[in-house]
């Protein structure tokens, strides 16, 4: 919101206070000043110029060479605007002037070969409006060479203030002035009104009925007759333009002025267009189409609060007036509406229509029901002054249930307990009074505070404490240098994730963070996705059902950047819908924390002393097992292998703990990769961390390193290719003596010499006992026995030996 300091000074004396101090105090009390435009400084170099002559630029059709008189000299200036003409008074920026809208400085320049000594300005370049249709043409009466700060009264300071939603009272100049009065301990001045009313009784000219008293607790009408609809005087136009409003006609400008002065939105109807000179406030009983004064047809839903006349709707209450009753050049008599509407009703209408106006913005935040009369009268007074109107006698004020100030008890002791320091009671009383709150001392510790209706945000003691804290300044609240730390157990629910991250990075994986919002296609790949009701775009319309599609997007992007050897991991939540209809409870969907490990490209890049190696399934499998061993889960999980393809994997394995699957992974199918434009193999494994967390054991036990020597034996068998390593291994373990502790494969070999359907598997056997040294004989006996058994069981043939 834009605030003009010169305007605000009508309501509070700010003499001997610098702009810097005002800005700093406002910001430090909760009205954050986001921008300060000091016009005197901003426009200090601009002067009125006189265009003496113009001629076409020889080298450019759209440029004009102008001779500009700056009060002393004639200067040659190139201008690009089509509306520049000899005889105009214009805003001239001499060499060295900084242009406000681009932060650039005008230099002597050659434009298409012709020298230019300055610039003729458009309104947008001066930040006066968005208009860039042509240069700004000034009144002929201005003298060339005169600073525009004087000529155009550009000597104000405009503050851009961010008003938080709890402070509707600060959405006006008087509202901000009230805070300044409290901050600088000065008086708030609200000008008194003097109305010259005629003998015409308003009740004979108009009537008001409120049918929906809940949504419209108060409606005031004031009538002014015989108005002249003309352009507003310069001071009024200046005032509105400074805060970014475009002047229209005197009546509309006056309602805007009053709005920005005291925060009350007003609407002026052409009284003669109101059927029966009647106002009825009621909600729509059916859907209707209504044309607002911006000439747009709008569909209004059931239960929209409307202002109607004797026959039809004439305005959307609190949002925008209707075209059928708006002020035009021929309007003679007007009815000024000053009402209080229920905030949530206006918010609902504004939201459904997608239409936010200065009025609706204030009503939905909460206006003051008790400023309505002042605002209506202030408006009538200005209409009388500026439109030569005659104010009808009296006021129509429908206000069946008066809204009174709230009374709240405030304890000084509670203030100290919340803030951690004592604010002196006198100081507290002064702050509250300056903010316009009435106080009564109840006892040594207690005040009874009466909160006027312009502060709907102050409802409880804590709200008063905030007022005290912010006006007294947060800087005055001490900063403790000691805190108490209790000795009870601290928990860290992210600890396990941390362990996982450490392990994954140690294994060479890089952590990625992908957007969980993705296309429906990508999300459907791995489950039934949840749709976003109001997505930003089609490529973010669903929540991911696993981390795989996000990883594939990342891999695809990296490959396109020429980075092809990839090892990523991600920890993140995945979402699956488990109901058909609308999601109404937490049991209608699942949210699980997943971990994805994914590899693609080369595991080892060729080096001067190292052979290159492609990533493959066994790399993935090995990484997963190393990973699980680091979190002590290597020996408790059951692997299952699936060599035929499913929806996404060409082949895969799963890891389970007591029938519960913890994760699965393998080689992704080419058809899937093709969807992501990936033409190299990708292997991935995805864990459900939520489950993994629940089964991992945090206790580790120590075992002594082996004290006695191991006896190692090797053998290799030639067997059918269909025989699986794991089956042979399990068989050996089952049939061997308990002294055989480890069976591992050290070679797999296939060759024509073995036969096309045969292969060689070579095993290492480790025998040992924790309590004694083994003899060669007992090992030899078991070893020979195993050779015989394996040979027989698998139709195998012992190699070599």
């Amino acid at each position: 919101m834009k605030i003009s300091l010169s305007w605000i000074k009508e309501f509070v004396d700010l003499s001997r206070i610098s702009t810097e101090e005002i800005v700093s105090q406002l910001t430090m009390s909760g009205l954050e000043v986001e921008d300060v435009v000091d016009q005197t400084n901003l426009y200090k170099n601009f002067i009125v110029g006189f265009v003496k002559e113009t001629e076409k630029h020889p080298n450019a059709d759209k440029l004009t060479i102008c001779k500009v008189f700056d009060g002393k000299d004639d200067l040659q200036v190139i201008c690009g605007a089509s509306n520049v003409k000899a005889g105009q008074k214009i805003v001239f920026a001499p060499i060295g002037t900084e242009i406000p809208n681009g932060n650039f400085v005008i230099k002597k320049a050659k434009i298409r070969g012709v020298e230019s000594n300055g610039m003729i300005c458009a309104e947008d370049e001066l930040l006066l409006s968005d208009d860039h249709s042509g240069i700004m043409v000034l009144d002929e009466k201005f003298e060339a060479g005169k600073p525009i700060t004087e000529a155009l009264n550009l000597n104000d300071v405009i503050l851009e203030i961010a008003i938080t939603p709890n402070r509707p009272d600060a959405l006006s100049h008087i509202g901000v002035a009230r805070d300044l009065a409290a901050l600088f301990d000065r008086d708030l001045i609200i000008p008194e009104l003097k109305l010259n009313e005629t003998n015409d009784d308003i009740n004979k000219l108009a009537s008001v009925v409120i049918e929906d008293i809940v949504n419209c607790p108060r409606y005031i009408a004031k009538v002014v007759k015989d108005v002249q609809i003309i352009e507003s005087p310069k001071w009024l136009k200046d005032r509105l333009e400074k805060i970014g409003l475009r002047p229209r006609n005197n009546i509309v400008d006056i309602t805007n002025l009053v709005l920005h002065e005291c925060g009350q939105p007003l609407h002026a109807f052409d009284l003669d267009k109101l059927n029966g000179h009647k106002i009825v406030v009621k909600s729509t009983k059916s859907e209707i189409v209504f044309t607002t004064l911006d000439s747009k047809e709008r569909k209004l839903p059931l239960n929209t609060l409307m202002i109607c006349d004797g026959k039809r709707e004439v305005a959307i209450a609190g949002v925008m007036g209707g075209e059928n009753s708006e002020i035009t050049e021929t309007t003679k008599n007007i009815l000024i509406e000053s009402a209080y509407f229920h905030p949530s009703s206006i918010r609902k209408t504004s939201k459904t229509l997608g239409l936010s106006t200065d009025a609706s913005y204030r009503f939905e935040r909460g206006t003051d029901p008790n400023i309505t009369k002042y605002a209506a009268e202030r408006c009538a007074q200005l209409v009388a002054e500026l439109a030569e109107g005659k104010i009808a006698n009296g006021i129509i004020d429908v206000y069946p249930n008066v809204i009174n100030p709230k009374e709240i008890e405030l304890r000084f002791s509670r203030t100290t307990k919340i803030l951690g320091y004592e604010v002196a009671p006198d100081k507290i009383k002064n702050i509250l009074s300056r903010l316009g709150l009435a106080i009564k001392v109840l006892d040594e510790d207690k005040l009874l505070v009466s909160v006027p209706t312009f502060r709907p945000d102050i409802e409880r003691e804590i709200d008063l404490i905030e007022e005290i804290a912010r006006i007294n300044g947060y800087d005055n609240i001490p900063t403790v240098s000691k805190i108490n730390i209790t000795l009870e157990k601290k928990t860290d629910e992210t600890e396990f994730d941390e362990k996982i991250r450490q392990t994954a990075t140690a294994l060479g994986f890089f952590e990625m963070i992908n957007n969980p919002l993705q296309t429906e296609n990508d999300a459907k790949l791995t489950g039934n996705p949840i749709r976003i009701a109001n997505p930003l775009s089609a490529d973010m319309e669903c929540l991911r059902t696993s981390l795989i599609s996000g990883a594939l997007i990342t891999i695809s992007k990296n490959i396109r950047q020429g980075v092809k050897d990839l090892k990523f991991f991600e920890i993140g939540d995945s979402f699956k819908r488990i109901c058909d209809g609308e999601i109404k409870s937490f049991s209608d969907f699942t949210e699980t924390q997943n971990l994805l490990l994914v590899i693609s490209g080369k595991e080892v890049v060729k080096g001067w002393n190292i052979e290159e190696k492609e990533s493959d399934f066994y790399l993935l499998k090995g990484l997963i097992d190393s990973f699980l061993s680091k979190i002590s889960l290597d020996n408790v999980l059951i692997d299952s292998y699936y060599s035929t393809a499913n929806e996404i994997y060409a082949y895969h394995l799963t890891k389970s703990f007591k029938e519960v699957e913890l994760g699965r992974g393998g080689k992704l199918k080419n058809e899937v990769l093709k969807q992501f434009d990936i033409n190299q193999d990708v292997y991935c494994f995805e864990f459900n961390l939520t489950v993994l967390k629940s089964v991992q054991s945090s206790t580790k036990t120590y075992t002594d390193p082996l004290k006695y020597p191991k006896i190692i034996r090797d053998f290799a068998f030639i067997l059918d290719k269909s025989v699986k390593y794991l089956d042979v291994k399990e068989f050996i373990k089952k049939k061997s003596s308990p002294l055989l502790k480890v069976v591992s494969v050290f070679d797999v070999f296939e060759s024509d010499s073995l036969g096309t359907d045969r292969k060689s598997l070579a095993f290492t056997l480790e025998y040992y006992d924790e309590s004694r040294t083994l003899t060669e004989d007992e090992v030899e006996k078991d070893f020979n026995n195993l050779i015989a058994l394996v040979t027989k069981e698998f139709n195998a043939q012992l190699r070599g030996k």
Partner: protein
Amino acid sequence: MLDKNITEIKESFYTDIKSVSSIKDVEELRIKYFSRNGLVSQLFEDLKDVVKEEKPILGKKLNLLRNEVSAYFEEVKERISSSNSNKENEIDLTLPGKNYIVGSKHILTQTLDEIKSIFKGLGFSVANGPELESDYYNFESLNFPADHPARDMQDTFFVSKEFLLRTHTTPVQIRLMEKQAPPVRAIMPGRVYRNEAVSARSYCMFHQVDGIYVDTDVTFAELKGTLVSFAKQFYGSDLKYRFRPSFFPFTEPSAEMDITCYLCHGKGCKICKNSGWLEILGCGMVDPNVFKFVNYDSEKYTGYAFGMGIERIALLKYGITDIRIFFDNDLRFLKQF
């Protein structure tokens, strides 16, 4: 005469041996001094011609010399022959070593780790909560009434009327307080979503850390002390800061904490929009209405809460200008951290 020769030969040996650097030099030295006709052998020959009275003394001296120089000779010979055996392999030490790839955590995770460890040091636990939340936890219980303009502060992605993607990690505060009685002291890191157009400055999802402390005597002064301690540990102890009033429905009074712009040191620049200050977090005293939702007695207990965005902190700290780079997962970016 011999006496003088002994001294001379000793000196000349020590001079010669200094320049020995190869097996060949060693052999030349051996021949010069220790061969049958070598200089040392020659001295023993000369001893025969010495007068009888001097023989024992000079003989002893000569033996000492032989022992000394031959021992030193052997030592040098050993050193040279062993170093020479390496030289025979001609190792090129300048070739690169084997390239091991150690992965890394995402820069946002690293930033969060740092924040987490500071707050853990200040006695905070760490808690988690779901991203797909109910309206109740995300808004209602945090004192955002339905149809209230405060809801406009956070543009929301809805999946249904009642369920949405959480817009802040603050709902975890409620979940935590529902589970346990005061004291509660915890931070809640996590991912949040806002329905805002994606640009260099804002993304539709980002990460936050929320924190809460509720006990019998928690004050605004303690809130200030704790957050200042955090900021000094994170940003440096010479940091300047300010707390300024703001508005959040779930805290009252509410504040935003600013620190001096690290780029312009408070003079004003583009990053800090000429104010000289950078906003780093929002905070305040827990609103009594929030306590009502979790059945805490707000007369007995007071508390503070705060929240900050991780991306913003990382952008500022590492001078990154486009937030989208965090989620591009370009390995060349990830490898830098």
